């Protein structure tokens, strides 16, 4: 009862295998991306893990042309907030889609981006 339901480490271990895991509040039904200790809507702690489809649409996006030092070699690249089918949103790197064809509302699908020991959130064509 006291251990966290899903840690960041758990989330990204599952994400590495292609599975996105959200949490749903057993009291009010709010859906969230972990880690969250209390539900920000009702402040209860009654989370249940829920599998997310990874399918969604672009809510907003940008093309980063001036990148931080450690991403400089990757620029230009697109980053988007994607509204998932289930209602929560997730920020990720857009891959394998032409930058000039991106638009709000475009369907995309989750794809783990794995480099060495780090997994990050990516989205590719639906």
């Amino acid at each position: 009862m006291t251990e966290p339901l899903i840690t960041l480490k758990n989330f990204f271990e599952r994400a590495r295998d292609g599975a996105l895991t959200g949490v749903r509040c057993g009291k009010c039904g709010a859906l969230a991306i972990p880690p969250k200790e209390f539900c920000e809507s009702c402040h209860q702690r009654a989370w249940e893990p829920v599998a997310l489809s990874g399918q969604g649409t672009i809510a907003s996006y940008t093309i980063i042309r001036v990148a931080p030092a450690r991403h400089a070699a990757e620029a230009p690249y697109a980053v988007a907030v994607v509204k998932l089918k289930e209602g929560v949103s997730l920020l990720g790197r857009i891959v394998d889609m032409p930058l000039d064809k991106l638009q709000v509302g475009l369907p995309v699908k989750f794809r783990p981006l794995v480099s060495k020991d780090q997994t990050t959130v990516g989205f590719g064509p639906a």
Partner: protein
Amino acid sequence: MRRAAVIGVGVTKFGKHDRTSAELFAEAARDALADAELPPSAVQALYYGNVVGGETEKQLHTGPQAASVLGIPTVPTTRFEAACASSHAAFRHAVMEVAAGLSDVVLVGGAERVLNVSTAEATEYFAYASDAVWEQSVGLTFPGVFALIARAHMTKHGTTEEQMAHVAVKNHRHGALNPKAQFQKEITLEEVLASAYVADPLKLYDCCPFTDGGAAVVLVSEEIARRRRRAIWVLGSAAASDSMLMHDKRDLARVPATERAAAAAYRQAGLGPENVDVVELHDCFTIAEIVATEGLGLFEPGSGGIAAEKGWTSLGGKVPVNTSGGLKAKGHPIGATGAAQIVEVVTQLRGEAGPRQVEGARIGLTHTLGGNTATVLVSLFGRD
């Protein structure tokens, strides 16, 4: 609770300096104390803002360092880190210390040095104020954060890149009137629209520059303020926070923390947006000014772009915004910005702003935003 007032202000020239942030703060603080007609020995506490000192100067504990360079090493000093809102957060806490009766004279300020590192390094350090695991990892930058907001605002309200460009043109026009501004040069709408994309839809001239600089204000109790002719009263000072992560925000076209901080500050002051004569707000990017004018209640949600286009926020307009040139033209030394905005509003309310003076200004507002819109502070000021 006691009333508090600002009786001294100081700010360095903004731009590139070959001095440490502590030296820049000390210059601004020296000017603020002289303006307040108080000796350094009168200062009972220092509330200080500095953000990326750990990275650009390899320097932590920048509060006591700044106090030592100023020459007040034994004064209790606290450094605040609230990203770009750091010295405004420091100011709010200083107001509480004076209001609570713990101190009668508190020095507030901040400084930042970033032009000693490359743009790519500075871009990375500023991105440390977004989430390391979810956001820095995918290469999100600060222009990127506001580009996501801009795209959402354009989609929801029809705001255009040209309307955003009007903000840049206006703030450069104001900055040209401010001898402390980093850019004292007017620019045209065409130049803004032709500048290169940094993070689409934001272009170079939609972005504030990297800046070195320091700012300071002297905050005192009512008893001391009553002995000064140019005291400017603090009518309200409020903070609000919001979700850290961009993906947790329910509406990317809004900044709810601005709306909440403004509501609290207006309530404290017994005022509303219709009472405000002059505004210094957080225009780190042109879209940030548009969204802030809406969140502060100066214009209806979705109409901030129209207000910029129509000139309603210009000197001579309905409510002049960023008469200093704003972060866009005056510059944005992040740890100093909140204090520097207060310097401008105090200068305006004293009627000492020269060619950029808003005639008859009685009520002023400052608004400072930190990080991914996760911290906002709003303060209201008035003259007797």
